[in-house]
């Protein structure tokens, strides 16, 4: 029933793709380990069959709003930053298919060392690392990069490191260095120490075992102190990676050319196969898909870092054997979930929440996004790309009965004495939202709820549902992990102490066990052990607390021209890995 639309005539192809995606996800069920100093040495392992030279065209929908690492927090900018910027750590693919990774030192000689369980982290910079102008990258640049994250104009990147240094949640961290490093003040050595040109030491009051993961984010790449032009850096940053920006015309195009001062011996992550990347913007998904399918002229050497295959062409792309070697598929980090607003007294009754969980049909949600090729029924709140994901976990039986179980739900409602209970469903007024909310409401009504749908404009949706006194009983949101650990999913979404106006604990859950478990697991320094514990907490939240009902794991299909080599979908990047592409 779930796959009724997309399966027709192409079951075999879909089975193959599903298998591939499950395999892809399987590697994520174990956590991503930290490598050592040997793993952190360059050059990166050669991509089989790779050739040097040629120009790669990149078709993108949106222009890059930000190129300043401190401002980068969206996928397309993260993807291009892999070519331009470098950070202290990075994710290294440990297999040619790009499905296994480890965290290694990028500019640093290793992924960081700690001797006190994650309170103090020491990094040593490699020899021979340079900016595009040939000047060396030193610990002064690292200090400057960290300190400028506190400046008022840096307001769009990830906040983790700043919050950890200030040991405070929210945006209070700005009080630590309100003007950044621009008015002569600096972070004290008790927080960030740079005793010489090569050494960087982070000191936290609370153990931060995830630091190597966090520092691998594009948002924490290093900025040149000498070349820092404050807000203008966002348009014209100084490169440390294998490519530098030759020309950027916002909204039109960008040309990346080889950075002669990048030394492959210092870089375990990147290659410099192509001479040039010619990126052009304003290509809608349908246009880029058609162009890449047609495979004419320049499009033979074209790829897209972020554009997915459009919904109309998904089945064609996935089921045409001729396209197989130039198509990649994978999961995105996002998980859809129906929030149950616990600030509403009637919803504090667990039986009502269980009734919602049983009754809620997820089929409409999957269909609205293009069927099973674009969305997979979710069992838990951890995506297949996050360590701790368990494919067998499905407490509400959504994988077997995606249309919901109204009979069970009705029984629970009867037990609670709430048959006919009014349920206000706030839905986003996108085409998808319109589509799935109608069918979801109908499914809930079958169980005995009286569902009142209320439209919320897409532009203000998250603003409205994050208000503490909103009147929506249920509403659907999606959340993506910032790195493949549940530490970037569970604490921001379900920590009861983080309930605030505009914050992300949308269901306003404040469960003592969740709160204490978050504190306990956050201190576990072994990534594998932490992943297992996060997995258990995920099960407790979904099965026992029932403040959210998981709906779908977002998937993505991408296609490239026939002359593009090294094409791999990287789960960490959530798309084509641009670092290993070459022209055949």
């Amino acid at each position: 029933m779930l796959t009724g639309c997309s399966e027709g005539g192409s079951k075999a192809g879909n089975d193959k793709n599903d298998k591939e995606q499950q395999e892809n996800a399987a590697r994520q069920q174990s956590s991503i380990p930290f490598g050592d100093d040997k793993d952190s040495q360059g050059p990166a392992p050669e991509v089989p069959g790779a050739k040097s030279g040629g120009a790669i065209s990149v078709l993108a929908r949106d222009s890059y709003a930000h190129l300043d690492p401190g401002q980068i927090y969206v996928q397309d900018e993260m993807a291009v930053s892999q070519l331009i910027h470098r950070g202290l750590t990075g994710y290294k693919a440990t297999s040619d298919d790009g499905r296994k990774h480890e965290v290694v030192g990028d500019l640093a000689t290793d992924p960081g060392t700690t001797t006190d369980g994650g309170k103090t982290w020491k990094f040593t910079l490699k020899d021979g690392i340079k900016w595009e102008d040939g000047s060396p990258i030193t610990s002064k640049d690292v200090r400057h990069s960290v300190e400028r994250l506190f400046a008022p104009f840096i307001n769009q990147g990830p906040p983790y490191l700043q919050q950890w240094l200030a040991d405070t949640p929210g945006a209070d961290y700005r009080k630590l260095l309100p003007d950044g490093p621009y008015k002569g003040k600096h972070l004290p050595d008790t927080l960030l120490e740079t005793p010489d040109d090569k050494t960087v030491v982070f000191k936290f009051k609370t153990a931060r075992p995830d630091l190597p993961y966090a520092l691998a984010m594009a948002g924490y790449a290093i900025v040149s102190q000498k070349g820092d032009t404050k807000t203008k850096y966002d348009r014209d940053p100084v490169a440390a990676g294998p490519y530098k920006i030759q020309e950027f015309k916002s909204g039109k195009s960008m040309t990346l050319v080889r950075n002669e001062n990048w030394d492959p011996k210092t870089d375990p992550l990147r290659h410099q196969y192509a001479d040039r990347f010619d990126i052009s913007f304003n290509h809608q998904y349908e246009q880029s898909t058609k162009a890449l399918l047609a495979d004419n002229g320049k499009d033979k050497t074209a790829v897209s870092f972020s554009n997915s295959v459009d919904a109309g062409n998904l089945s064609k792309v996935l089921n045409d054997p001729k396209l197989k070697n130039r198509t990649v598929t994978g999961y995105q980090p996002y998980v859809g979930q129906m929030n149950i607003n616990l600030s509403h007294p009637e919803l504090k009754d667990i039986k009502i929440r269980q009734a919602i969980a049983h009754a809620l049909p997820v089929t409409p949600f999957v269909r609205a996004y293009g069927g099973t090729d674009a969305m997979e029924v979710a069992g838990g709140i951890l995506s297949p790309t996050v360590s701790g994901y368990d494919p067998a976990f499905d407490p509400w039986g959504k994988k077997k009965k995606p249309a919901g179980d109204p009979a069970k739900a009705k029984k629970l409602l009867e037990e609670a004495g709430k048959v006919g209970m009014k349920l206000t469903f706030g839905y986003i007024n996108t085409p998808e939202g319109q589509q799935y909310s109608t069918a979801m409401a109908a499914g809930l009504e079958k169980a005995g709820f009286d569902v009142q749908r209320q439209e919320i404009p897409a532009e203000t949706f998250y603003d409205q549902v994050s208000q503490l006194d909103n009147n929506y009983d249920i509403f659907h949101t999606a959340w993506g992990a910032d790195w493949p650990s549940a530490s970037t999913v569970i604490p921001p979404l379900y920590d009861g102490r983080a309930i605030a106006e505009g914050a992300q604990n949308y269901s306003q859950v404040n469960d003592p066990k969740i709160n204490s478990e978050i504190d306990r697991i956050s201190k576990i320094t072994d990534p594998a052990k932490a992943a297992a514990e996060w997995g258990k907490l995920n099960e407790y939240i979904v099965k026992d607390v029932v403040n959210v009902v998981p709906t779908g794991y977002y998937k993505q299909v991408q296609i490239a021209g026939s002359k593009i080599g090294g094409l791999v979908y990287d789960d960490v990047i959530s798309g084509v890995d641009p670092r290993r592409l070459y022209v055949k």
Partner: protein
Amino acid sequence: MLRFLVRRALGAAVILFLLSIVTFLIFFGMPRDPALLICGKSCTPANLENIRHVLGLDQSIPEQYWLFLQNLVLGSNDYLQGPCPAPCFGYSFHTGEAVWDTLIDRLPTTVSLTIGGAVCFLIFGLGTGLLAAWRRGTLIDKAATATAMVVSSMQIYFLGPLALAILVYQMQLFDKPAYNEFTKDPVAWFGGLVIPWVILSTIFAAQYTRMARSAMIEQLQEDHVRTARAKGMSRRYVFFRYAWRGSLIPIVTIFGIDMGSLLGGAIITEYTFGLPGLGRLAVDAVSFSDLPLLLGVMLFSAAMILLFNIVVDAAYAFIDPRVRLS
């Protein structure tokens, strides 16, 4: 004439001033918060407050408007953004770029699209209209009129993707639409815009066909035209020398308005073909609740329309000597 132009220019300035106030008020009446769009997934109230402060949205609306006017006339020199010489429209909320630079950067695409499109729709539209008027009542007239009706009922968002699918991806007769700078590669400029020109012109051409036909038919029934024919002048001479000139007034009027509108951005055409012009910029400005960019695009587009209105008014004097006399 100079006095006329000065008077019209002053009138245009007043209109632009009023428009800027209206745009400002409409923006703040919109049910969306630009700071929230920027704030992103890890948004907190404190971060939201910081963004509002950086964008200047924590000031009152009159204060913000006054600052906007001040920067527009005098320029600004913000310590973070650097100098922004007049006319300073400020910096985009979304990209942080100077709005004026962005407008100037996008203008060549829109100008190229407009000029090429105008040439196409004038040739197709007027040519067909004149032919229909010349052959009034014949099969040619009926076919031209019917074609104009059919084409004008089609839309760019239908014809555009259709043309791309058939002419570009399937038959590979044309390059994929793109804007290439004329000064760098005129051939690529032409090749990249030819489909957008033709598609854009279809909508306008039909309108000009009908307008040229009816204006010519009306003119051909005028006394001076009949007198000219009675004096023995050839039909062709009278058609082009007398009737055509007389029918130009309404055509020039509409043409001026169309040019002004197109130079403000052919939104659907630019969006359909992925061309980075002013129309596309207007869509982005609304999508991202980008007040400085929205103001910039609105005022720039309005200025284009007003400018072409003045040009049209001035052109009347050259087309029709009676206007000069009055």
